[in-house]
């Protein structure tokens, strides 16, 4: 399969700071994969997203070393405006993700398509579809400034996926959402994956990562310390050394192993724990 994102020995330092906040990062992402980026606060997740979207170095200057290649082309060779269609970026703070020029959610979601010069009939159709998809039809007439944090996060996601980019970079889309809202968003993201989008997601909710993502990148103090399929990373003892959360069920399983309950494999999804216990039990009773 083709690598749609390729990053080679990338380091980056913000203009005013003394230290590099991304250090010698190398990885690649296949087209259509769903990759989760995890790490503690300040690990550099958002900065990495900015680098993939081209805001580093096109918007945030500073010092960039190494290569960032998107769809076969160096990021520095793109113009910032061209990347808008290719990479959709939903960023962390839902409160600043409002264009500030539209007086209703419907128009807010339509804004990106207007900028891309999409014909009006098509815009209306696409916005209708996305409002339904993200479950915000009831907010269509509301002023974007009068929404709650969770509602804004949904609008922000809708405003990006309506533009139908090949790559979605999503930075903590559920920080303001309740459990049901969070499930909704993950359903939408899964749907995007089914439609063949390449998804990069920063998220702290490991249960959901275990359920939906294909691969994980673990960032720690600016370095990419682990990468690989979700299951391999969570079952690697090295993961425990970074003090990042586990999926709840994995945490429980590791505690069980600690007190001497043997398990056939390390579960990462809830329904796997009974299975792992049962397999072990059956083996012992054969």
């Amino acid at each position, binding site marked *: 399969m083709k690598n749609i994102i390729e990053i080679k020995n990338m380091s980056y330092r913000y203009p005013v700071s003394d230290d590099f906040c991304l250090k010698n990062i190398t990885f690649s992402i296949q087209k259509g994969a769903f990759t989760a980026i995890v790490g503690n606060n300040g690990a550099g997740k958002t900065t990495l997203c900015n680098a993939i979207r081209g805001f580093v170095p096109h918007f945030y200057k500073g010092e960039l070393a190494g290569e960032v290649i998107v769809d076969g082309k160096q990021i520095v060779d793109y*113009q910032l405006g061209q990347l808008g269609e290719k990479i959709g970026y939903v960023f962390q703070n839902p409160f600043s993700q409002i264009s500030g020029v539209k007086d209703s959610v419907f128009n807010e979601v339509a804004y990106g398509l207007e900028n891309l*010069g999409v014909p009006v009939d098509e815009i209306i159709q696409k916005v209708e579809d996305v409002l339904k998809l993200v479950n915000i039809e009831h907010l269509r007439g509301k002023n974007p400034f009068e929404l709650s944090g969770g509602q804004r996060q949904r609008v922000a996601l809708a405003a990006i996926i309506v533009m139908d980019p090949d790559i979605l970079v999503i930075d903590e889309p559920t920080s303001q959402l309740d459990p049901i809202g969070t499930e909704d968003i993950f359903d939408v993201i899964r749907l995007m994956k089914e439609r063949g989008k390449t998804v990069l997601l920063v998220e702290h909710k490991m249960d959901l990562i275990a359920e939906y993502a294909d691969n994980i990148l673990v960032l720690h103090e600016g370095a990419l310390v682990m990468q690989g399929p979700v299951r391999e990373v969570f079952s690697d003892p090295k993961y425990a050394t970074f003090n990042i959360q586990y999926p709840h069920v994995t945490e429980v399983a590791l505690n069980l192993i600690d007190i001497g309950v043997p398990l056939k494999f390390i579960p990462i999804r809830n329904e796997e724990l009974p299975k792992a216990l049962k397999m072990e039990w059956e083996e012992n009773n054969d």
Partner: protein
Amino acid sequence: MKLNPILNLHPLTKLYFSLFVTISVIIIPSYIFAFTWFPILLVIAIIAGVGKQYLDIVVKALVLLLGIVFIMQLFFYPGDQVIGEWWIFEATKEGLQYGLVLTSRVLAMGSAFILFFRITEIRDFVKALEDLGMPPMGAYIVLSTLQIIPEMRRQAHTIMEAQKTRGVETEGSLLIRAKAFIPILTPLILSSIASTEERAITLESRAFSAPTKKTSLHKLKRSNSDRTIPIVLLILMISLIIWRFFL
């Protein structure tokens, strides 16, 4: 409201009308002519369904100003036909004449533009300017300022509330309120600056600088009146000029 024939006019038609009023009172020196405009404008406002607000704003914005202008002219305009005396001041006939001319003009122009902004959505006006070729950045600045002012007011209110719970006095005399306002400025300005950067990124993620021609869901309609009214105004204007200067 959607069916109101005046509100539904194209913003430029409304603008042409206000300009017509302004220029007409400059061409025609008679203050009676200039004073006649105000009742006409008021009738238009009433038809547009905004009569009360309109009258309110005109009174608030113009009456004091007009009063001051009139009194200044009455007493200080150079002239020698004294028509009255008050303390050490003398009112002259020339002063009265000029005061009436000036106030009538200010009233006509001021109330014409107040009417314009009363019956035109800024959003529509900006769209009209964009259609005329104003760059998208200009439109963005006007519209975002418009939206962000109430947002900042809300934010200021939140910060004030927060300070009240910490025991800062925020109510009472003007002086107390002014004092309470100063400490909120720093957080308010800092947070606006911080969000400017993110706002720029937001715009960029919405393809603001995409190298294509933008489309717009917001379309301004041009009715028959929007085609005829400007022509009628132009003909009237030319007739006024001919009548004033050549007859």
